[in-house]
């Protein structure tokens, strides 16, 4: 490997419109033919730095030196023309077009005014072959699995001449098996002299394929290290600032006799008529955390929307504490003491333009403590929101600050504070710690366990397998709208086994008697 520097980012500072300092004096140096890890917790600023590099964000300070020349990158188009490609976490592909069409999109070979399809297919096949990607380029993107879509994204970048390839958490949507395959491809790219930036917070993956790692914490660079010279413990210490154990002291379980939530033969189609939840049945008792794992898009969102009353179009039966919810409004369901931490905190979890206080009462402003027949009790609300801010350690100037001005972790704390403060019996937590700092995440996880110990029933959906493993009492895997696997001895499940269920390779058929009586 030669040690030629291809790119330097020096003293980058980036402040977002809401006042969050995402990067504070960060420097990065990339060499030709290396896989360079950007390591850091969610919210540490690695994505921001990459957005600056890819021309999506303009830095407030700092310089970028590409192959010895100071340069500014004004837009993604500009970045691509300079040989920088990026594969986003959420793929930017046109589902109704073929793989070949997606690859050549925007830089298509033309025949007169029209796209020369034969040439396009040939070009796509050539590039796939050159990099040893085994893909049928005639397939439509909507028909191919996630792992292949990611390959298409990589090919798209390579076709545009990317020498530096940014991969934003590429393994987040992949099963362990697909991840292995991706790694083989990445190593081949490295051999060909490409530079790959691998954004991740998974230490074992970085150990496996990266040459060097730049570790970020709190918007600052903690330094660049040779991966082979640094232990995972050391990396995690640099990343988090202290040793965190993901093992929680889980107390002995005390299940209630009552079934808090009973679901039978639940079937849900989405707005497009696609079957998303397929004949699902389970029981949920107080005092347990039911973890639901699965690759995103296998019906988890639809399941949660239906259980919480957001979606009313379903077949089957849902009973909360014995009461059927067919005709219950969301308000009725919330009155049954159900709390819901939504998947997307900005879309449905809060109103960014309203104050912290106004966001804290959306589910309990009708409570006698906070309002009379018509009027809100401002004093009580002010006092309560100050209490909650303190109890949940929300970092803010005051309760009057707009929620949108807070960092992701603090917004999530506001939401969690609101949902938990009603004293719920059932908590549905959908990705409760996604994209937030490690301290806030640990806090929320601890709270969930406390509620479990207090006899609350919890459904936890998470893409973070470590979280699922460390919290769940029972663990189900969702695959294509069904529970494809179910474990009661969560401690003895391996990631590999879970992965096989997530992929649909392994399938437990008989779940009756395990999931419900």
């Amino acid at each position, binding site marked *: 490997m030669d040690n030629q520097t291809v790119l330097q980012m020096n003293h980058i500072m980036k*402040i977002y419109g809401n006042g969050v300092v995402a990067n504070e004096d960060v420097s990065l140096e990339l060499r030709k033919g290396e896989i360079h890890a950007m390591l850091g917790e969610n919210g540490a600023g690695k994505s921001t730095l990459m957005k600056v590099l890819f021309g999506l964000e303009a830095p407030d300070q700092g310089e970028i030196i590409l192959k010895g020349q100071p340069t500014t990158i004004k837009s993604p188009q500009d970045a691509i023309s300079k040989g920088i490609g990026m594969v986003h976490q959420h793929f930017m592909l046109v589902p109704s077009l073929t793989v070949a069409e997606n690859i050549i999109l925007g830089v298509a070979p033309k025949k007169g005014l029209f796209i020369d399809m034969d040439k396009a297919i040939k070009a796509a096949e050539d590039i796939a072959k050159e990099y040893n990607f085994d893909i049928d380029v005639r397939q439509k993107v909507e028909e191919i699995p996630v792992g292949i879509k990611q390959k298409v994204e990589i090919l798209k970048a390579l076709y545009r001449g990317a020498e530096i390839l940014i991969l934003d958490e590429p393994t987040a949507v992949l099963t362990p098996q697909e991840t292995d395959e991706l790694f083989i491809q990445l190593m081949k790219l490295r051999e060909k002299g490409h530079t790959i930036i691998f954004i991740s917070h998974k230490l074992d993956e970085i150990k496996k394929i990266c040459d060097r790692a730049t570790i970020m914490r709190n918007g600052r660079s903690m330094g660049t290290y040779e991966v082979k010279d640094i232990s995972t413990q050391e990396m995690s210490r640099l990343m988090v600032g202290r040793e965190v154990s993901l093992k929680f002291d889980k107390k002995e379980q005390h299940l209630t006799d009552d079934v808090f939530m009973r679901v039978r033969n639940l079937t849900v189609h989405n707005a497009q008529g696609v079957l998303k939840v397929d004949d699902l049945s389970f029981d949920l008792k107080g005092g347990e955390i039911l973890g639901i794992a699965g690759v995103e898009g296998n019906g988890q969102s639809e399941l949660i929307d239906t259980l919480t009353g957001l979606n009313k179009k379903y077949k089957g039966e849902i009973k909360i504490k014995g009461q059927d919810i067919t005709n219950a409004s*969301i308000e009725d369901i*919330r009155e049954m003491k159900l709390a819901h931490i939504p998947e997307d905190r900005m879309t*449905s979890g*809060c*109103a960014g333009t309203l104050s912290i206080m106004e966001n804290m009462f959306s589910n309990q*402003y009708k409570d006698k403590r906070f309002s009379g027949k018509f009027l809100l009790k401002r004093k009580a609300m002010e006092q309560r929101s100050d209490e909650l801010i303190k109890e949940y350690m929300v970092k803010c100037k005051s309760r009057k*600050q707009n929620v949108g001005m807070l960092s992701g972790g603090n917004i999530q704390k506001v939401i969690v504070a609101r949902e938990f403060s009603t004293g719920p019996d059932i908590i549905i937590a959908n990705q409760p710690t996604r994209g937030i700092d490690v301290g806030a995440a640990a806090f929320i996880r601890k709270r969930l366990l406390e509620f479990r110990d207090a006899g609350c029933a919890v459904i936890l959906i998470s893409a973070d397998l470590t979280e699922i493993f460390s919290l769940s009492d029972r663990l189900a895997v969702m695959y294509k709208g069904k529970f494809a696997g179910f474990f009661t001895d969560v401690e003895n499940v391996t990631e590999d086994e879970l992965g096989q269920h997530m992929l649909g390779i392994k399938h437990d058929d008989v779940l009756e008697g395990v999931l419900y009586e």
Partner: protein
Amino acid sequence: MNSAKKFDMVRTVFSVLIALAISFVIIFMVSDQPLEAIKYLLIGPFTNKRSMGNVVESMIPLIFTGTGVCIMFSANQINLAGEGAFHIGGLIASCVAIKLTATFVSPFMALLCAGLVGALFTAIPAIMKITTTASEMVSSLMINYLALYFGNYMLNNVIGDPKASAASYKLADAAELPVLIPGTRVHLGFIIAIAVAVLGYFFLYRTKTGYELRLAGENEEFAKYSGISIVKVIMISQLLGGFVAGLGGGVEMLSPIYNRFTWTSLLGYGWDAIIICTLSKKNPLYTPFAALFLAYLRTGASIMARRTDVTLEIVQITQGIIILLVVAEQFLSKYKHKIIAKEAKAALKDEEA
């Protein structure tokens, strides 16, 4: 005050100043006596009691429709039927005031009916939205003509005074709202308007329903997820907004300015309301100030038009520019980013210290 609010204020002030500056440039281009014109525009309303009265009296309808629009827009319902509600409110008030002649009863009933009919009127686009998902913006825009032509029909066929041209029978004297300041036409409606603005604020910011309305207005998904009924929010906001706008029409009709119903075209207070709402950032409490600004500018303009060779339209241009600049999110965004970056950097230093 947080930096976002501070910035909003700075931007509003800047917009006003820039708009005025542009108007001055235009005045200089079109006028032979530009300095005089500018003088009348800026300090004309201060020159005598009557002109100052004009300012206050023209604030009244603006506060009503402005508050109505604030309530509707707070729920993120871009219902533009405030214009029609105002018109039809005036119409109904005059109908009632023609028939009823008893003291107190006449104005009270006239205003009540004006408000109720205004509420029903703005409810039409709301109901259409709920039942058929028709965009309230389009339907409310079109429905204003319904109010106008219904008014014309009534004027020609029902309440028109055959002895007068394009005017109704005389309204009962008992219905007229009393003048507050002798020598001007500032009437009781001003007190009602201020009360409505304060109540509007109180409703939006202090009541349960107002809270629901604002939550839904800022993020409908969030409101739904919280268990708030969107249908209820749409209906209540539109009914109340329409009531206030209709009431405003009634108050205007019963003011000393009119003694017969003579509106054969839409007066435009519904459109002005959008300016008021934008300037006051959807908070009814600020509508009197926004109304004062607009009324002052217009009174100044009419004095300028009377005394010099500059026409009234100049003020329309000023208004247009103000709105464009206030609503342009990106206007001064670099300056905004600077404020925020500066604050963030200062906060960083604080943490280190």
